[in-house]
């Protein structure tokens, strides 16, 4: 299956992109996606451990399963306000 990853803030700058498509085995979790991304993009590896994750615009735990076409966003430490 394929998910859409969108990048913001420090991740966007480190990735050098605003989004990408990521192929994952069916039923893969947020944690698996995070590990795969860190492996493929060393520039993200240092940032990802501090990030929360959101699936389809809602916070999701590490063991949440992804589904085809999901929007996955890793959320660096917040700075709003």
């Amino acid at each position, binding site marked *: 299956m394929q998910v859409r990853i*969108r990048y*913001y*803030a*420090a991740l*966007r*700058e480190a990735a050098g992109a605003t989004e990408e498509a990521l192929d994952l085995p069916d039923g893969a979790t947020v944690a698996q996606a995070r590990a795969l991304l860190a492996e493929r993009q060393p520039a993200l590896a240092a940032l990802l451990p501090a990030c929360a994750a*959101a699936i389809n*615009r*809602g*916070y999701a735990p590490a063991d949440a399963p992804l589904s085809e076409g999901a929007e996955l*966003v890793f*959320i*660096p*430490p*917040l*700075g*709003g*306000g």
Partner: protein
Amino acid sequence: MADKTKTRKASSRPTAAAAPPTPATPPASIIRITREPLDSDAIRALEQAVTTAGAGGIVTFAGVVRDNARGKRVRSLEYDAYPEMAESEMARIAAEVARRWPEGALAMAHRIGPLAIGECSVVVVAACPHRAEAFEACRYAIDTLKASVPIWKKEFYEDGEEWVEG
């Protein structure tokens, strides 16, 4: 509303004057992620939009870009947001405010993009019948916004830049 049940005598008073107090139904919440300045006029418009005739206390929080942070001189800021999720998280905050303070009304606006020192990054307005509720609702909303809404801040210094938490 209390005198709605009173017997009303036939009277020559105009209808409007004899009407019961304005219903407590507040206006819908206002939620906004914007690249436009949150200047005096914008803040005033948010305040007026949430103020009903039953609102006795209005508390406005304005977050302003400071010229220093953690001992460093800050030259300017840039805010980034995941806009769709930021708005849905702000809607969640507004729903919780409506649940906890049902007579209150809330406006929340966050600016993104580049900001100069002294400019306003975020505004939260809570209008409630009484002041304690207005303070509590406003404080709850800005505290929760900072903790849950996906917005990020980059500080630009004399000699560098950094995405910072908080």
